[in-house]
């Protein structure tokens, strides 16, 4: 009567690289619950055997007591049976609740382990791995493990015990009827396997068509405006209807075929039912063997409990394999190596903000991104980076926070090689405002406070005032306590940027990076943002990347970067006088 795992029509082939190790590892999560699990196993054995024995006693009751008119004993046996069942149910209840609790505790722990490791992976991991894939490991795969622990495992265990127990009881009672029961079990299994084989192709086809269908829906709905503007509504619809029809056809083929499985199993059960009754009856009449009415009765009940578990066991083994594959994927993520500090790394609480790039080269995989960059920035200076998209400007900034390892050269903060400063300290000394700064779904106050978790409320508000964000925040219905929606979609791009500037303010870090901080802001807010940035840059070593040259003119140094190399370096006036790339870029905006 347990919840059944839906029958897996395609017994998916899973390749496991090292299933022993994976099982062992899942086992290690269960260590703390050893005594509880032992209890569960004992309970399971007891309840399963109770069912097996109980069913047999039912048959005996019919043969011995009812047929032989022993009312007293009948009532006593029935009372005993009832007590047995009550105890078994109580056992089942405890067994189920303990399993669920253990399984959930384990999956919570696994999720926790995955997440905490994920937190400390190097940036490159996030660049090279699809968010969807990581999410699916964190959610689906952990869920699979949970199901395996909660249901599959126990079901498999109960299944095996009941099959063995009932099988033994059946063989002892009547080998003939046992054969009949087994036959129906095998028939059911073979048939569903045959159907699965037949439908496999149809299902794959259906899945592919569904993919096509969904892509079309996604594309045309999100491109709806284009579809309308280019007069494509009718042609899009007719194309869609074609795919839609194809999908229905493929799906019908697959579903109509597999919908026979249910009724067929029902039929084989019924046939076995008939055979047991008929063969039983015939042998009683003909006095072959020692079959009685009670035996027939027992078998009829066993039949319902036998075919189910045996088929289940086969499915469950497959599900278990899938879960092991999930576990393997999850552990892979747990084992991914973390960003580690150099053992000799020093602590640097408050830096001056003196930065040196000394012959820095950087390659991503084998692609050279930056080549021999040299730069000295004194505390309080403003350094601007200019150049076409993809020239490597943002990469320079990423290296400044040690997000990626260098290929050659050194980056120094206050004379210390960055790789020899503790990462947390280094990053606390550098504040970044990105083109699209990320805001979290928490209150505005908390979002700003992320810059310095020990900041007081008045610190937060002061930072917001400096960032020109205070006014708009106070106009919001809940002010600083306004809860941001996902991706802060209730704010304009400019307002989001002001918040991230406030967040940078509150860090009080001596080094500041502004990475295209005004690129996607409208002009009105841009004035606000620029004022805020000017405030922010005061007394800080600032690195500015910008499309708009007006932002850059006042910088102490300007680095013009093209194809990963510094091609010009100087201040606005000297670069204009040079009449090179910078001058061309600057003048192009007035054409």
């Amino acid at each position, binding site marked *: *009567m*347990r919840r059944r795992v839906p029958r897996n029509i395609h017994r998916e082939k899973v390749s496991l690289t090292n299933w022993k190790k994976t099982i062992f590892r899942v086992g290690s999560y269960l260590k703390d619950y050893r005594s509880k699990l032992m209890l569960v196993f004992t309970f399971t054995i007891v309840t399963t055997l109770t069912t097996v024995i109980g069913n047999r006693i*039912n048959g005996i*009751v019919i043969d011995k007591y009812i047929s032989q008119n022993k*009312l007293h004993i009948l009532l006593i046996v*029935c009372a005993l049976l009832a007590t047995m069942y009550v105890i078994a*149910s*109580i056992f*089942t209840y405890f067994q*189920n609740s303990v399993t669920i609790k253990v399984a959930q505790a384990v999956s919570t722990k696994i999720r*926790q382990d995955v997440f905490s490791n*994920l*937190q*400390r992976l190097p*940036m490159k991991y*996030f660049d090279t791995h699809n*968010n969807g894939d990581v999410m699916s490991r964190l*959610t689906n795969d952990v869920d699979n493990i949970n199901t395996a622990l909660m249901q599959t495992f126990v079901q498999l265990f109960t299944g095996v015990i009941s099959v063995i127990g009932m099988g033994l009881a059946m063989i002892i009672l009547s080998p003939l009827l046992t054969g009949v029961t087994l036959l129906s079990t095998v028939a059911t299994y073979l048939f569903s396997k045959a159907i699965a084989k037949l439908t496999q192709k149809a299902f794959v086809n259906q899945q592919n068509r569904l993919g096509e269908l969904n892509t079309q*829906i996604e594309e*045309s*709905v*999100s*491109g709806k405006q284009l*579809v309308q*503007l*280019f*007069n494509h*509504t009718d042609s899009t*619809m007719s194309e869609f209807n074609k795919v839609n029809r194809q999908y229905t056809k493929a799906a019908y083929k697959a*579903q109509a075929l597999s*919908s026979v499985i249910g*009724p067929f199993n*029902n*039929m084989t059960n*019924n046939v076995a039912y*008939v055979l047991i*009754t*008929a063969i039983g*009856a015939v042998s009683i*009449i003909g006095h072959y063997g020692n079959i009685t*009415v009670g035996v*027939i009765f027992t078998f*009829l009940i066993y039949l319902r409990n036998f075919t189910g578990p045996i088929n289940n066991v086969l499915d469950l083994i497959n599900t278990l394999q899938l879960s092991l594959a999930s576990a393997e994927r999850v552990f892979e993520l747990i084992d991914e190596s973390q960003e580690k500090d150099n053992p000799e790394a020093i602590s640097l609480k408050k830096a001056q903000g003196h930065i040196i790039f000394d012959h820095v080269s950087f390659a991503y995989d084998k692609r050279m991104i930056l080549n021999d960059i040299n730069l000295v920035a004194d505390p309080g200076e403003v350094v601007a980076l200019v150049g*076409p*998209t993809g020239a490597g400007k943002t990469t320079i900034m990423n290296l400044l926070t040690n997000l990626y390892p260098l290929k050659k050269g050194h980056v120094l903060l206050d004379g210390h090689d960055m790789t020899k400063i503790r*990462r947390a300290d280094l*990053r*606390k000394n550098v504040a970044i405002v990105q083109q699209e*700064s*990320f805001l979290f779904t928490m209150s505005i106050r908390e979002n700003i406070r*992320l810059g310095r*978790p020990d900041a007081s409320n008045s610190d937060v508000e002061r930072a917001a005032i400096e960032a020109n964000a205070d006014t708009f925040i106070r106009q919001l219905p809940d002010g600083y306590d306004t809860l941001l929606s996902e991706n802060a979609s209730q704010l304009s791009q400019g307002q989001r940027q002001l918040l991230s500037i406030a*967040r940078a303010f509150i860090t009080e870090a001596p080094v500041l990076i502004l990475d295209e901080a005004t690129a996607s802001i*409208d*002009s009105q807010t*841009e004035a606000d943002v*620029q004022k805020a940035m000017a405030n922010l840059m005061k007394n800080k070593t600032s690195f500015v990347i910008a499309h708009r040259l007006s932002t850059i*003119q006042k910088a102490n140094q300007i680095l013009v970067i093209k194809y990963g190399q510094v091609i010009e370096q100087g201040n606005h006036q000297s670069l204009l006088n040079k009449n090179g790339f910078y001058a061309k870029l600057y003048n192009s*905006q*007035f054409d």
Partner: protein
Amino acid sequence: MFRIVMQHTHGKARWSFFLAPIIMLGEVFCDLQQPTLMSQIIDQGLAKGDLTFVIQHALLMLMFAILGLSFGGTCGALGSYASLKMGESLRSHMLEIALKNRQPNGLAPATLITRITNDVTQMQNLVMMVTRGLVRAPMLLLGGVVMSIIVCPDLAPILLIIMPFLVVFLLIIVRKSIPKYTQMQQSVDRVNQVMRENLQGAKTIKAYVLENHQLQQFSEQNQQLQNNSQIAAMVTVILSPVIQLMLNLGVVIALAYGGSLAISHTISDGQIIAFVNYMIQITSAMIMTVNIITAFSRAITSATRVQAVLDEAKSEQQVTTVDMRPSNDQIDFENVSFGYQTSKPILDNISFHVKSGQWLGIIGATGSGKSSLINLLTRQYDQYSGQIKLGGIDIQKMSLATVHQEIAVALQDSLLFSGTIKSNLTYGAIKATDVELNQATKVTQAFTFIDRLSKKYLAPVEQAGKNFSGGQRQRLNLARAIVPDSNILVLDDATSAVDQATNAQIKKNLQKLRHNKTTLIISQRVTNVMNCDEIIVLEDGKLTAQGTHAELLQKSNFYRDLIQTQLGDVDFDA
């Protein structure tokens, strides 16, 4: 929900929808025959040692089993036909509504997509399940009760005691569990959200050293999830032992009570066995019913979400049947206002005139109404007051197709469709030749990078153009709008992702290409509109100034400020 199903099943599909449950009745009937026949074999065949009777009845049972299979199979096939056809029709209908809808405040694309995909699939599955289960489970239940009363009326009281108790118990648990499961789902969503944010914001987290802070957040949510799923599971965990117990106790009572009756020869062994078998059938039917109820409550959410999309069609205005064609390409806005009922107007009494062949620049901050202006001109929305004319004719008197043939638009959001570069570029002019494509892509500075691809114009474009950079996408997007060589070209911030130097080159090329052809340029960047014949300034939905660059420098403060912030200390007289 029934209405949706009715509206989207026609002809054969509708027949199948109604036929499937009726055929299912057949399967149930066959199933219900088995225990009765069996008890007859035992009581009459066995007792009298009548072999022919046994074999006859066994054959009868076999026949019912095979008949049951054919009923069941047919029902399954009909059910999947009906449900799939309904899904097909529903998807097609919803997509058409989504594409044709011209409501300014319609559903967002993301939710539309999930509604057309997931929610329709949910409903499809439900219809499939309903055609089989909705009849099978209750009928088996009812039939089981009826049959057992017929077969052995003496034992019926046992059912009458156990059944109501079980039903009430099941209902209580289901009712109690639904809110708990909703709560659990919310916890799941929150945990997922934290995880998703952490992946998206990985760089921010590292830069601000927030790893521990985030970990703590996650731990809290994770713990909460564990608690909530435990609460939910604990409510339902009692289900299976109780059902099991009821069943087993029922059997024991049947044996004890039935046994005592059998001893006094009121009923037979066969009757007891049949009764017990019916009881097993009834219990499994009951579990099936519970599953269907849960599935139903989930599908109802989907159905309401689907209905909301279907309802959007109702508010759609009748499209005019007249189709006049403009004789020239001048544009007039006459006292045009537009806005949603509640908030302040997005466009407030806008009037301007664009001469044939003129270049018009439209400048203003985000939210000033620039894009709405274009949406009205291209008839994305019709709910405005005032008049918009094309070649002197009210655009409401033209068909949508005519308006869209007249005007080509390049939007800021440069969405590409999956296919090839060519299929994207020829989206507005299917017959365009490669020579024409070359011309357009040279203008938008896309030619070089296309030429470097091994398949050139036949190079594949992935969904949303993911395999091209933002700048490349925008240049393709722009070329797509140029290829049809429409009388009027509108560029809505169409070069925002292109770098300064390329942008300048594109501007130059466009000026040559669209010389003396009506062109509207919307931008936040002064440099993009500076050279237009005429510029209008939008502030908060109002047209506050109009004139050439030189004139606006004189009369618009907003324009002057803009120049100041965007160009720095530039000598204006230069």
